[in-house]
């Protein structure tokens, strides 16, 4: 255990080892570590962003769904209203049409009645004339008694 030139050799060796380690070991491994750290950090950030995006998307889809439902409800209620209106209109129209038909029929009936009355009247006047002629036993001058007859007819 003497101190001798080994001391110098060891010092030089030490310096060389440190230099080698600095140049060829430490730097590349540290660089790889840094890069990996960055990669992992990026990956985590991406995952976070994706999660956030997913959240946003699901929120948005829920909103769209809600809107669609609202719209559908609106459409249904609109159409119901419209259907009611149409039915109402149809009812009104049908009533008017019915009324018209009824009125027409009534008018026709009135006309028929009138005509029948007229006919009846003329027939009655003829019968009355014939009866009167038989009663009187002679021909009545239609001409001479026309106004009389007319008076009669009007009375019937």
């Amino acid at each position, binding site marked *: 255990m003497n101190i*001798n030139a080994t*001391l110098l050799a060891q010092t030089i060796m*030490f310096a060389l*080892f440190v230099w080698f*380690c*600095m140049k060829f070991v430490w730097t590349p491994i540290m660089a790889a570590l840094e890069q990996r750290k960055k990669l992992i950090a990026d990956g985590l950030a991406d995952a976070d962003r994706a999660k956030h995006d997913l959240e946003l998307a699901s929120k948005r889809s829920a909103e769209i769904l809600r809107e669609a439902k609202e719209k559908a409800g609106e459409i249904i209620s609109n159409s119901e209203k419209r259907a009611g209106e149409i039915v109402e209109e149809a009812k009104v129209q049908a009533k008017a049409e019915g009324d018209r038909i009824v009125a027409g029929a009534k008018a026709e009936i009135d006309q028929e009645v009138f005509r029948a009355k007229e006919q009846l009247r003329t027939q009655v006047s003829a019968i009355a004339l014939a009866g009167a002629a038989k009663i009187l036993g002679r021909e009545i001058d239609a001409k001479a008694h026309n106004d009389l007859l007319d008076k009669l007819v009007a009375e019937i």
Partner: protein
Amino acid sequence: MSSEAHTSAEYIRHHLQNLTYGQLPDGTWGVAHSVEEAKAMGFWALNLDTFIMSLLLGAVFMWMFRGAAKRAEIGIPSGLQNFCEWAIEFIDTSVRGSFSGRNAMIGPLALTIFFWVFAMNLMDLLPIDYIPLLMSALGVPYFKVVPSTDPNATFGMAIGVFVLVLYYSIKIKGVGGFLGELTLQPFGKFGMPVNLLLEGVNLIAKPISLALRLFGNMYAGEMIFILIALMGGAWAGFSLGGVTLYGSQILLSLGWAIFHILIVTLQAFIFMTLTIVYLDMAHQEHH
């Protein structure tokens, strides 16, 4: 009895002697074959075992981490890459925790210190006789396997750290700032010699404490392994005492080895953390 004591002493001495290459007493260059020969070589000698083991361990560490660094990619890491990334993140966290400045060199420096010291310490867990026996079979007289039990190795690193401390002290604070820090506090400019003495001791204490702490711990640990191994060396046939000694050697070396796993890691960590702290202090300006 005396011969056994002699062999025990020999055994310990053998285990604590480095394989030293230098100038032999007869003027030729070669490997010292005795403790006295190694001592006589003076400063210009090289501990081959420390040198080779630390070079080898450092190379293994660099090769392993370089392999991971080359294949480093940002996908899912596996196996070696995972381990290396974990280690680097651990070191990086430690550095960020105790180093407040910005310096691209501190991280790699801490990583190198931690794993190199760790690997060198870890050699302590190898059975202490294997490699010396193998080496003596190959004709090599001594071989100390744990480089960090050689003060040359620990001081070598500590000096490297010390140079960095000086360099950054001067770079950050300027020569004047650094000298001012050494001389103008804590007692103001009239206490300059005292300040210089205090701060100088403070400064010099850094590398010395770094080196001696590691060396002392590993050396003491190695010593205990040697002493435990000596118990089994007292084996002298199937007597009750012999068997007891042998059994307790196994138990003790197991216990000490398990405890040493902690020491090995802890010492590497302490060396690294203190280096970071010293360099942090070098980066900070005091006013």
